[in-house]
């Protein structure tokens, strides 16, 4: 019997939104799925060798639990984004949640295929040398070629 398939479109490049594609992709691969993730727009940030710029912002993010109530006027101060990112990473580590780098490596080890959207790579003038080597490049039609035959297809 052929393996089940899952396709994910990853469009977000913040720390919180980086987790779902990598968690679902690594888990599906462990369950025996063939998995492809198509990274487009801000999702391209997740393919960079250096993920230290993947951050979380408390600003315009009212659902983010904060240790103390924080007015928007405070959230917009310089350095707040770095601080929130640092706190979030500490929290993730404390709870035994894998880092993005680790999850991404687990995906690659499990043969999850990463496809970067060529159009948005050009649009944002990304240098391909900034991306990890395992990335393939393609467009919407490339994605459909795989997605049209999947059991699970998600947009993140």
């Amino acid at each position, binding site marked *: 019997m052929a393996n089940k398939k899952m396709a994910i479109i990853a469009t977000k490049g913040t720390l919180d939104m980086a987790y779902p594609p990598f968690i679902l992709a690594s*888990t599906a691969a462990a*369950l025996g799925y063939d998995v492809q993730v198509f990274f487009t727009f801000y999702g391209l940030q997740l393919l960079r060798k250096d993920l230290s710029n993947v951050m979380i912002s408390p600003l315009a993010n009212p659902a983010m639990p904060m240790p103390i109530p924080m007015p928007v006027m405070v959230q917009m101060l310089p350095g707040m984004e770095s601080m929130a990112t640092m706190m979030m990473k500490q929290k993730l580590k404390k709870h*035994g*949640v894998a880092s993005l780098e680790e999850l991404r490596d687990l995906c690659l080890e499990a043969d999850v295929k990463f496809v970067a959207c060529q159009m948005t790579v050009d649009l944002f003038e990304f240098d391909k040398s900034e991306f990890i080597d395992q990335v393939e490049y393609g467009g919407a039609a490339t994605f459909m070629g795989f997605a049209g035959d999947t059991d699970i297809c998600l947009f993140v």
Partner: protein
Amino acid sequence: MNFDKELNARGLSCPLPIVKTKKSLNDMTSGQVLKVISTDTGSVKDMAAFAEQTGNPLLAQEEVNGEFVFYMKKK
């Protein structure tokens, strides 16, 4: 219960216990038994789901001193 390999997944959160279980099974041969120790509450349902979907039978599971212990046979 006898086992051939042990995976210490203590302190790890979803999806690591599952992904590491799969990795451990990759290095084993059919019929061997993997013991997994996890502290992640979510792993109880997830290990059962993993077993069901991959066809590797979950021979037994128990809770010992707040830790979850699973015995999985490689199919």
